[in-house]
């Protein structure tokens, strides 16, 4: 039987828009790295275009968006739309930040795979990735 070498799950953690609150994004990025995923952190002030471009270039399996500014209603759908346009809709999109519960169904509807609200332990997000995100190739 052939043994397949599965590459590590690659995740892009991104800070879209003007929001500068990066404590959570950095903690998650580090937590994911410690959990064994390949993590690329975009840094702040990324446009949806920049995020999608980086995701494709870095050949990631998922994008995690951290948004605390209330701009989630614009940014999540925009990123998903751009991924579709570029033929990369198999890159999963998830996120976290300050996102009211009542907004989550709409995000799920447009294709966001998970939203991790405040108080989520790192291990819970790690577990979700292990169970839901597989290398694309």
């Amino acid at each position, binding site marked *: 039987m052939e043994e397949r070498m599965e590459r590590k799950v690659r995740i892009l953690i991104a800070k879209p828009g003007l929001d500068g609150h990066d404590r959570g994004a950095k903690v998650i990025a580090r937590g994911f790295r410690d959990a064994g995923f390949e993590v690329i952190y975009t840094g702040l002030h990324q446009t949806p275009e920049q995020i999608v471009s980086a995701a494709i270039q870095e050949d990631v399996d998922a994008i995690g968006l951290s948004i605390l500014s209330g701009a989630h209603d614009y940014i999540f759908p925009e990123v998903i739309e751009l991924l579709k346009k570029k033929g990369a809709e198999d890159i999963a999109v998830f996120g976290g930040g300050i996102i009211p519960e009542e907004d989550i169904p709409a995000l799920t509807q447009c294709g966001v795979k998970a939203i991790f609200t*405040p108080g989520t332990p790192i291990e819970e997000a790690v577990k979700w990735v292990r169970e839901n995100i597989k290398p694309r190739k």
Partner: protein
Amino acid sequence: MFKEDQLKKIGEGKRKWTEDLSKILSETPERLPRFTTISDLEIKGLYTPEDIEGLDYSKDIGFPGIYPFTRGIQPSMYRGRLWTMRMFSGLGGPEETNKRFHYLLAHGETGLSIAFHYPTLMGYDSDSPMSRGEVGKCGVAIDTLKDMEILFEGIPLDKVTTSMTINPPASILLAMYIVVAEKQGVSKKDIGGTIQNDMLKEFIAQKTFMLPPKPSLKIIVDTIEYCTKEVPRWNTISISGYHIREAGATAVQELAFTLADGIAYVEAAMERGLNVDDFAPRLSFFFDSHIDFFEEIAKFRAARRMWAKIMRERFLAKNPRSWMLRFHTQTAGCSLTAQQPYNNVVRTAYEALAAVLGGTQSLHTNSLDETYAIPTEEAVTIALRTQQILAEETGVVNTIDPLAGSYFVEALTNRIEEQAWEYIKKIDEMGGMVAAIERGYPQAEIAESAYKYQKQIDSGEKVLVGVNKYVTDHPPITIWRMKPEIEERQLKRLRQVKETRNSQKVKELLQKIREASQNGENLMPHLINAVREYATIQEICDVWREVFGRYSDPGYF
């Protein structure tokens, strides 16, 4: 402070107590292997005079209003005047925020504080592609002077002081404030307030940055130089630890990095040729008040003592007002939870108490719903009443610095001071804060502390009630939401302002700003002229981005 034979007796008493204790502990161990502050400073079970053996009352503790100000910077403190109840506010457009200002003033707040939306913070107008999804959500949308005029409708600027949380465009907002006052018939000699204007902590923590460090500092010194002459009642900078703490720093890091930033600003202003005693009295500070009660009180007392020493001994300031650390405090946003939001009322109350026992000059108390959204009127009222009950009912304001002399609090104050000096020394050895920032030092320290803390919460080593202990369901709460019509109105107004202003004049004034930026002139007079003609914030910031370049996030994690 104690005679040798007294200390000897106390030492013997302590030994006896320790023996008795060890008998009890062998049967009933303490609940935890270590008791620490939220910042991981280990705390002993008991403090005695031995713990403050070397303390000299007159030299180290002293009297309020007298160097080194450990007990407070004013001789009468709250007996003379309560701290300013200054609630950070901003939502939607200037109309909504004006309404919130009037509401809070009517409910007893004693100073204004503006929260701007992200585009304004970052030097963009509401119609910029960068602003999509952001307008009016985290604070008030301000694009031009017109918005500021609406914001202060019915608010006399000779009667009320205003703090503006604004950094890269701080000078522009100050220019607008000066012109609003001018239009009210109030001279800039009579207006009072603060601009946060602290770019170093932006690179370290808050991250609303725009230009690289050197030009950012240049503009800050322009405001200090200008205000020292022209706007004497204005606090030119609010040297901040709050954001550093919120990003995950420990109490010691918050204190050390803030004071190190302060040192950098004093050096920059003195490099410009300004006399330290001319500008230092109008520097101000801004700290967090986090949930670990005594650690915060000790931090505030250490801060005053340290800054006094820095100003008098390092910078040789002669004016006692140059030695005084005046500060605003905000209760810790990062201590609040989305789970069981009513618990946040309690957290904010404890944190407010710590700030007052720590001698703050001004205080903002967070609302219970701020882990979700901008506060509702109901929530912000409770937050304001928290301060009023503290001031009027608890009696803690009856005497100055009531915790002075506590063996524990004085020992903790000493310890925090000692550890903060170590950080400052390290930063000095790196060449100062700008150099330290360029090599990522404070950013790395903060990221480390933030990660460590999260692991402690996740493991249960540190408890967060409602999150990792006492976890129960809670009913949903009603939160404030931005309305799309507000954004539409803002965009419409911006268009109208651009149509009705003298655009040729604006173009010329922007060119003047460009030239002044290139040849190192003080920018303030040019900014005032430009905003008076309704130049937009982004138009001015675009000139700066063009001349000075942009700073982009190095993305450490």
